[in-house]
């Protein structure tokens, strides 16, 4: 939009045309008070707080030119009534007065009116101290009450709206921010109004009340203490809090948050603004799900097994034991007899040092960041190779952007993406949602493509075929190979055959292909369901991105939703059996997690180090293996099932107790800071790894790392990503320096990563602290985004987006996807392990979300239920080639026939017992009692 010049309180400046008066005045540093207006939602003009005087230049009716007065100034015609600034768009020459007597009278009047209802119970209100009503009253309001009636509004208070939120209707100023947030941004229309006049009130429309994964945000934008969280209620006064900047590691979005601490205690979690990640929001998992940090069952000291029980030990003792045992196994059987698993929520520093410990000090490549369950699937490399281009910012995208979300359920896998993708659509982007079943995001799609069960690959191929037919291959700019193989593969079937196999009308396929091709920016996001179809699908999606020209540039590329908060970091930094940091392929692969358990059971792997994962909870194979192993170290927050089977248990510091960096789904590296001292004697993971490594180095187990430099090839990674011959990395050929194991702080580790891992070049703590220009996110210099509490401001850095690997020029992309996996099993139904935000994540322990954890259920379609004569609630058994399990049936109206959905990760429902791989065919029987 072109700029227009306006004059606010006598100061003239330019703002984009169409900006509303409130935003425009703030651009000139003039704050017009607001209650109902929120810069992230369309204005409604209800509270009348933002009344200002507005004038327009008078036009000469004949010439349509502004009339000038004697001084040569334009004559201004003031509007007869004050105008609400939030609903008035600016136009050229507009004059706005925010401080006249009339305006001040009106603003003071609105505040006085609000206070005639308001209980003024600030001393017991959690909002007190960061309350816009308090603050605006101080600045604009009357000093004294003239309302001499004992007649405030009275309601029962507080009313719990679900487990998380409390509503105090007496304090509500009826601004509707909460309702609009839920309707317009979260797409959970669970709040509404009832009655009218002074009895007009907020009600919950859902059962259970306030059923939304984003409810906590309403407590931030509520301008009074009408909505507060059950989790902060009466915990502290806000001025006692100190905000410690952290990163949420509960999913791959990597939201910026503040741990609000009183001394050493976590009082609440608040969002921290980052326009490129979470804007000003947090999902409820991030906000309420960090109580594990202070859970009473946290491990507080190292433990050493003595027979059938553990005895507390000093770190010295425990670490020495670990080092000695590992050294013994190493020297007796070599590094291949040792294996390590690290959770994909550990920080980059942890993960990097973990793999160094294994590769350099133990000579082992048996490294992974999965549980090793049957459905782990292959490592995802396309999300790093193609990734999103550097400079991507979803917040700036709108018209001209096409997003394809394929086989993902963002609300469950990475909740904040739901808000971000919806905002994109609201700004004019096209959103295509392809899935075999309904997801919440689908409701926001400009077009939904429901492929048939098992039809995803056919759909992806149909799209690629369409692009090839339109000559897209000739326009590819990247170094690539394998085009002929791709061609052969997708041309093997006619468009009609592919469309039929996908269960999608050909026109829809054409429409999507066209939208991707014509998009200025194109993004493909894929999640658990797509990954469960194997690399054949993911690589075909990668070819789709490449053919449509949507790679290697900002705001385009691929986003993989992977489990945990730092799977991408684990993949980038070599916690995998096949590649070193930077996707540098090892000449000899180690054992992936999936092969680990049988190897340990059979005695090939004798020692295991498991950091932050709990395979024993759900994997019978793992239990067997852990029993068989000679020595097991578990590094954990809690006494997990796996820890119970360990020889040594090492207490790890939680994310809030140490500094570290994390790489999110868009490959943005962000820094999280320690908010409190580690619980008990627990230590940061990286430190534990380093200490043991140092001991091993001192024992000279491997005096010089057996560097696999010679002959090391760049990663074959996702096979679709073969690197060019003769393009071997500097990293690999650089003469290895003696390993350092004497880092004092994680920033020194980060500096090493920055130096040694090419795509992490420059990612130092210093660089991570950059906050960008003030105002880049529409934030005002002088206030949190229009009073959303006090914690929003991001002074701690917005992170650094890594370049996609393909853009580094070091990789040649292979477009030839591997063939479709062949499933021989004839069982009629496909099992889908449904990823859920409130699934079995042990980190949710101690939080209010525990009550909302998914219940075990076997979800089936209406038609399959009818066929099998199954009713809601019937006990049913799923039978696969390898096992069976039973639970109550839930009949789902909108699930396609042929699919059985079971919540993933629930401790009470071990899917791994029946899974045969990423895809499991099953049959279903009703259990007759």
């Amino acid at each position, binding site marked *: 939009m072109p700029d227009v010049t306006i004059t606010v309180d006598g100061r003239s400046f330019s703002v984009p045309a169409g900006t509303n008066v409130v935003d425009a005045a703030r651009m000139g540093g003039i704050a017009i008070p607001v209650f109902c207006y929120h810069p992230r939602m369309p204005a409604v*003009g209800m509270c009348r707080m933002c009344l200002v005087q507005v004038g327009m230049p008078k036009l000469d009716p004949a010439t349509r030119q502004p009339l000038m007065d004697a001084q040569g100034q334009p004559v201004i015609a003031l509007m007869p*009534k004050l105008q609400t600034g939030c609903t008035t768009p600016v136009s050229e020459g507009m004059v706005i007065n925010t401080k006249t007597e009339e305006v001040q009278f009106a603003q003071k009047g609105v505040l006085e*009116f609000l206070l005639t209802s308001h209980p003024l119970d600030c001393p017991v209100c959690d909002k007190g101290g960061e309350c816009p009503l308090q603050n605006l009253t101080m600045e604009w309001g009357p000093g004294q009450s003239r309302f001499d009636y004992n007649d405030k509004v009275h309601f029962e208070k507080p009313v719990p709206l679900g487990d998380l939120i409390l509503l105090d209707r007496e304090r509500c100023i009826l601004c509707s921010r909460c309702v609009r947030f839920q309707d317009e941004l979260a797409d959970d229309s669970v709040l509404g109004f009832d009655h*009218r*006049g002074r009895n007009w009130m907020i009600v919950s429309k859902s059962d259970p009340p306030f059923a939304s994964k984003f409810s906590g945000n309403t407590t931030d934008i509520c301008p009074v203490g009408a909505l507060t969280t059950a989790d902060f209620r009466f915990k502290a006064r806000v001025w006692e809090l100190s905000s410690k900047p952290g990163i949420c590691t509960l999913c791959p979005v990597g939201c910026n948050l503040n741990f609000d601490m009183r001394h050493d205690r976590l009082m609440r979690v608040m969002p921290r603004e980052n326009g490129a990640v979470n804007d000003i929001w947090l999902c409820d998992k991030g906000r309420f799900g960090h109580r594990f940090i202070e859970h009473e069952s946290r491990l507080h000291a190292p433990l050493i097994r003595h027979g059938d029980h553990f005895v507390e030990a000093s770190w010295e003792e425990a670490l020495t034991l670990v080092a000695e045992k590992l050294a013994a196994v190493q020297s007796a059987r070599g590094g291949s007899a040792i294996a390590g698993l690290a959770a994909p929520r550990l920080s980059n520093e942890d993960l990097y040092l973990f793999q160094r410990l294994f590769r350099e000090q133990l000579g082992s490549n048996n490294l992974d960041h999965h549980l090793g369950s049957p459905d782990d699937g292959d490592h995802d490399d396309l999300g790093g190779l193609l990734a999103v281009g550097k400079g991507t910012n979803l917040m700036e995208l709108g018209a001209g952007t096409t997003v394809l979300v394929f086989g993902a359920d963002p609300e469950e896998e990475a909740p904040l993406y739901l808000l971000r993708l919806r905002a994109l659509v609201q700004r004019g982007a096209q959103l295509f949602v392809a899935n075999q079943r309904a997801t919440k995001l689908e409701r926001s799609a400009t077009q939904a493509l429901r492929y048939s069960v098992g039809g995803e690959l056919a759909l992806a191929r149909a799209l690629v075929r369409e692009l090839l037919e339109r000559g897209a291959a000739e326009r590819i700019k990247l170094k690539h190979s394998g085009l002929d193989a791709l061609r052969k593969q997708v041309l093997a079937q006619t468009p009609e055959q592919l469309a039929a196999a996908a269960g999608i009308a050909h026109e829809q396929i054409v429409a999507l292909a066209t939208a991707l091709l014509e998009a200025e920016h194109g993004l493909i996001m894929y999640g658990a369901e797509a990954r469960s179809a194997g690399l054949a699908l993911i690589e075909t999606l990668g070819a789709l991105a490449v053919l449509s020209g949507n790679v290697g540039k900002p705001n385009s590329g691929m986003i993989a939703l992977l489990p945990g908060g730092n799977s991408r970091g684990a993949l980038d930094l070599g916690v995998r059996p096949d590649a070193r940091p930077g996707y540098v392929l090892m000449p000899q692969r180690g054992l992936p997690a999936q092969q680990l358990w049988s190897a340990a059971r059979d005695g090939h792997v004798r020692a295991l180090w498991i950091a932050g994962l709990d395979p024993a909870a759900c994997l019978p194979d793992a239990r067997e293996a852990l029993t068989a192993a000679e020595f097991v170290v578990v590094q954990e927050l809690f006494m997990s099932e796996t820890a119970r089977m360990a020889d040594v248990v090492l207490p790890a510091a939680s994310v809030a107790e140490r500094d570290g960096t994390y790489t999110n789904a868009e490959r943005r590296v962000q820094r999280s800071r320690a908010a409190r001292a580690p619980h008990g004697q627990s230590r940061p993971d990286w430190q534990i790894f380093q200490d043991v490594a140092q001991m091993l180095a001192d024992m000279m187990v491997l005096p010089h790392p057996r560097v696999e430099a010679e002959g090391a090839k760049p990663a074959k990674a996702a096979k679709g990503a073969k690197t060019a011959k003769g393009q071997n990395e500097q990293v690999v050929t650089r003469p290895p320096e003696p390993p350092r194991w004497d880092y004092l702080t994680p920033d020194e580790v980060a500096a090493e990563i920055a130096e040694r891992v090419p795509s992490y070049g420059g990612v130092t703590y210093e660089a991570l602290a950059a906050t960008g220009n003030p105002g880049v996110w529409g934030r005002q210099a002088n206030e949190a985004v229009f009073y959303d509490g006090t914690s929003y401001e991001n002074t701690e850095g917005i992170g650094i987006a890594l370049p996609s690997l393909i853009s580094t020029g070091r990789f040649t992309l292979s477009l030839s996807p591997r063939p479709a996996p062949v499933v021989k099993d004839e069982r009629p139904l496909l099992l889908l392990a449904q990823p859920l935000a409130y699934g079995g994540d042990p980190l949710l322990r101690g939080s209010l979300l525990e009550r909302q954890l998914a219940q075990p259920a076997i979800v089936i379609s209406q038609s399959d239920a009818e066929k099998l004569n199954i009713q809601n609630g019937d006990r049913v058994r799923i039978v696969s080639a390898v096992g069976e399990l039973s639970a109550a049936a839930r009949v789902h109206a909108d699930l396609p026939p042929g699919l059985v959905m079971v919540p993933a990760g629930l401790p009470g429902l071990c899917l791994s017992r029946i899974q045969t791989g990423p895809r499991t065919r099953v049959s279903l029987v009703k259990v007759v009692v």
Partner: protein
Amino acid sequence: MPLSEYIIMRELNHPDINQFAVYRRVGGWETYAAALREQTPAALVQQVKDSGLRGRGGAGFPTGVKWGFLPKGVYPRYLLCNCDESEPGTFNNHQIIDRNPHQVIEGVALSAYAIECHTAYIYMRGEFASAALLLEQAIAEAYAAGFLGKNILGTGYDLDIYIHRGAGAYICGEETALMESLEGKLGQPRLKPPFPAVEGLYGKPTIINNVETLANVPRIIEKGVAWYRSHGTEKSPGTKCFSISGHVNRPGNYELPFGVPLRELIESPEYAGGMRGGRPVKIIIPGGASAPWLTAKHLDTPLDYEGVAAAGSMLGSGAVIVLDDSVKAPHVAYKMDEFFKHESCGKCTPCREGTHWLVKVLHRMAEEGHGEANDIPTLHSIYRQMEGNCFCLLGESAVMPIKSALELFPEEFEAIVKG
């Protein structure tokens, strides 16, 4: 002088005009049938424009001009007939329907055709149960006679008319709140712009008119613009059903040409028949509860939009409330504002909280008979804090009674404070 021919209350004195057959016999539905066959929608809009017909819902906005705001080529369009009629003192819509529901339905149908719409809704105040039944029946008869439905009279024009009964809220008469209510939402006004003609019901171009407005349309088309304009004044052509109530001898609805002096409406034995017991006129509220008050010195004001405005009030819905000297101004203001408080939708602060506070003070003064020293300045500042600052006109209307009372009869308030 009573009209020789009623426009709105056609065949007023025919006892059975409410029967479909009788209405047909006097020429009812013929205008519509002929228009469908012979006239283009655009031609009809032009005639309504030329007639100078002004909306009877309160604002007196020229109907043809409003119809002209519909964006070209955007369909579907909706026509809404506003029969929420909830303003104190306003009761003509109800009686127009009671007397002759068919003319209203014909008016709706003809207007729908004129604005090229195929679905019309009549939004009825919830309490109008009997009127709703009459309209339902009139609609059924019109369908049976082939005036509604598909391919009407073989012309290819389709039209459905639905009745929707509200749940009893004054605010639902406000056009955008009416649309919200019709859509099944809480009845509260919407932000304007966008205006209904551009984005109305279900986000589609929508025309909303009062019952009385639409009842005029068949007569204008039937008898022609010149005939229509021969009634009333240059700027307020035609006739108006004035609802007169209060301390008059014959309260009721009287259809009169615009421009008749207020005095004639009140005093003529044909109409209100003078003041009850011959007492003097004290307060005249000429356009429903939202209109600023007039007094006996305004009795010669001509009852048309311009005349009443010149006198400092507004013609509004044409509901004239006349009160004699037996009432006290603070009481009247209290009763009126009690109504607005009760009906405030709650959406905006000044109206929601202002009406409540106003009523608190007025209750103390009028009902309890005493006041605090600051009550009068407080009343002044409350209404000034509301005036011009509310989201919709309901809140602005609530200012009128108290502002008028304080301006016209300050001594009555002072007397209460003095005790």
